[in-house]
């Protein structure tokens, strides 16, 4: 019963997680998570058509105030979702941009970001 077991999984990750931030040209514009999901679908539809729009994307977290979101996609569709989000320029007649800040196959890793942590050190 008690013993040592080690499993290494090296293949393409099953799931990928993206941390993104949405920005509007007009800083007062706010949307909610349902609208954001529609926005992602629209972005995918724009670039990859109907099949693209059918890619399953889960929005694990959406912060209404900062409009930051954590998305979950399957490993196979990561490149498609990433590119579609990057190329999105407009939603509901308003110019916007999506910045992908972090990408990882480990959801835990999105909890901290060492790259941006030290940019605002007290000086």
């Amino acid at each position, binding site marked *: 019963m008690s013993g*040592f*077991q080690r499993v290494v999984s090296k293949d393409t990750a099953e799931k990928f997680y993206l941390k993104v931030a949405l920005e509007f040209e007009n800083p007062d514009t706010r949307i909610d998570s349902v609208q954001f999901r529609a926005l992602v679908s629209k972005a995918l539809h724009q670039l990859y058509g109907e099949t693209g729009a059918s890619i399953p994307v889960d929005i694990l977290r959406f912060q209404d105030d900062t409009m930051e979101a954590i998305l979950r996609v399957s490993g196979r569709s990561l490149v498609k979702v990433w590119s579609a989000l990057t190329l999105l320029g407009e939603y509901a007649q308003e110019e916007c941009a999506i910045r992908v800040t972090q990408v990882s196959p*480990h959801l835990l890793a999105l909890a901290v970001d060492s790259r941006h942590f030290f940019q605002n050190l007290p000086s």
Partner: protein
Amino acid sequence: MVEFLSPKSKTIFESSAFIHKNSRHTSCVSDHYFNHAVEVFLPCCDSLPDAVQVSSPQRQEYYAVKRLPLAELTNAEFVSRFVKAGRLYVLSIGQHIDTHNVAAILPTGRLILSVNKDTYQELGLEGKPSQFEKPRKVTKYSVEVNLVAESFCKGKKNYERVQWCFKDRLDLTFDFLLAWQPNDPSQSLDDLGSFWSSKYECLRVEQRQHSFQMRNQSIPVIDSSLLLHRQHKSNQDASRMNGSSQGCEETQVRSCDAAEVYEWLGAVACQCDCSGASDSFVNTYRCPEPSQQVSSSVCHRWTGLITSERILHMLDALRSKVECSRMPWAALTVHGFTDSPVSWGSREHGFSKYGNNLYTFVIFPKEQRYWLIMGIGDHDVCP
């Protein structure tokens, strides 16, 4: 539709016991030198237990020095006063490892420089091309200097060459984070700060804390002996198995899979919504089954530069806490720096789309068992 190649990921799942003679938990913690954040998740707790609080890295401070030339870190006086007299952790910040130069001093007294091609061709120190580059198209090199070697002292050729390269050839300056664990208890971190305070801007930084509590939450039920039963059943060839075989043939599985737990811990750490329905438009993620309801649980995170000794302390405190309390399990997660040139030991670390190097201990009260889950990226060497 077009298929794109998605980046590879490596995840290592280990199941063992702390009392097992071949347990590698100590080496896993102590070899991971540059720790950016430590996070504990304790179910069935109202607040952080005192034992854990005492052992936490809360009171451990570190220095941030701005625009420090590398020559200062390699001169003989600094080496004999700090590098040789304790465990010194130095890591450059603000520079990205995939495009810029990165420097670090390991507690073993080795200076690791990860430099791009142009810098390498001007620097004049011997190095190795990065492992993750294609041959003949190398754009990254890693240079290693042993600061505690006998030949590294004033007057010797090796030392003079290194000094000349950092001083006269290229003026390599970085923003550095420094943490120091002196061998001699009479010395303290203050010495490090006062060493340069006249010449460079030194800041004493505290670890940043972040804590949150969750009420009426469902948490997965875990059986410590069933690590990866679902995956194991489906693709036995892909995974490498060691030790005793598992009772996975049972038709009724009464535990969550390690991969599911790992994802769920991530969801908690990111404060994600775990209540999605399977037909929801926005989110279909929910806590893996089987699950149990707990009234309250605590998640606490320290961020900064944390030494591995401190984490070892914490792990021990957490172990004894889990043993004598009614927690079903507890989790400790350690995040490494994205832009550190090494991950575990002196294994090279790189950045390709993501540069994670993190590990999680899931600690069980029964038989001192634990799960260790290590997540690394494509540009990393398996520890």
